């Protein structure tokens, strides 16, 4: 099947250029950074901080869910930056170089081309997030106190929906522009804009995609999946689907050779 062919090619490409190694590793580093520094800060200050003799450091230990959430926050900034930068040339670079001309002159469906690239990038992103956050969950359990494993599964699953939305933003900009740098810049801008819109309207519309983060954070501390979380998740999936359909449409409209 064609879809599988393109998907396999993407997997192979990500293996050959080591993305399957470095992206998960970067996600692990980003995820464990905050729990470790939070825990060791007092110890490190104590040992290396040249504090006056007898000085007491009194930093209250935050509750485990809060520490675990720090990892999500970290991924939301640097992790997403990595995802957007690594996927900025996903389609645009192929169009710019002209490889897409060679591929799309074969009887390839545009839908397969776009969705296979979407799924392969999403898969890499999700696996990286699952591994990174698993490492974070492990350290939080070790250093701060127990968080049930089901919380890890639940929170990361809903977080995947958010990541899905982010990858689809990159995809649509990839089909609209043929300069990878511009795609990277615009997708970062689009995401900032989405967050800004959310913070302005969140009191009136409570289910905009960026709001899912607040609900995941709430879930981590209470352990209950609220209706708001469900609704936001479904709406985010809906927006993602719309973005993908629009991407296919844009690519079909674009003349590949201009």
């Amino acid at each position: 099947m064609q879809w599988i062919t393109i998907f396999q090619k993407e997997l192979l490409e990500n293996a050959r250029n080591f993305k399957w190694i470095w992206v998960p590793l970067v996600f692990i580093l980003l995820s464990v950074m905050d729990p470790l520094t939070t825990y060791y800060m007092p110890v490190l200050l104590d040992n290396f901080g040249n504090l006056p003799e007898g000085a007491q450091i009194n930093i209250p230990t935050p509750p485990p869910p809060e520490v675990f959430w720090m990892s999500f926050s970290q991924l939301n900034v640097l992790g997403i930056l990595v995802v957007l930068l690594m996927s900025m040339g996903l389609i645009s670079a192929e169009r710019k170089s002209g490889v897409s001309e060679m591929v799309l002159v074969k009887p390839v469906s545009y839908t397969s081309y776009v969705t296979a690239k979407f799924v392969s990038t999403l898969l890499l992103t999700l696996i990286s997030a699952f591994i990174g956050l698993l490492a974070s969950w492990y350290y939080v359990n070790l250093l701060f106190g127990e968080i049930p494993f089901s919380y890890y599964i639940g929170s990361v699953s809903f977080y995947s929906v958010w990541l899905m939305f982010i990858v689809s933003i990159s995809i649509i900009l990839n089909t609209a522009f043929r300069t990878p740098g511009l795609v990277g810049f615009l997708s970062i801008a689009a995401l900032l804009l989405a967050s800004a819109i959310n913070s302005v309207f969140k009191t009136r519309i409570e289910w905009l995609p960026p709001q899912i983060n607040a609900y995941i954070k709430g879930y981590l501390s209470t352990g209950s999946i609220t209706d708001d979380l469900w609704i936001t998740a479904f709406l985010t999936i809906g927006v993602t689907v719309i973005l993908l359909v629009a991407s296919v449409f844009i690519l079909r409209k674009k003349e590949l050779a201009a």
Partner: protein
Amino acid sequence: MNIQEIFQAVPWVIIAPILLIESILLIVALIDLARNDSPNGPKWLWVLIIILMNIIGPILYFIIGRRQD
């Protein structure tokens, strides 16, 4: 405080995995650079960036240094 005390104060059980990840990133980036026919920018500069800039260097190389084709 002497070297020994500093050494003992470092929580190795926890730091070791991070050092491991760092070194894998560094090695993989160097291998890829060696196989890269046309990196974005001079090769020697990337070698320096990868080796000297802890963690960030390899990531920068993967994102900017390899041409996307």
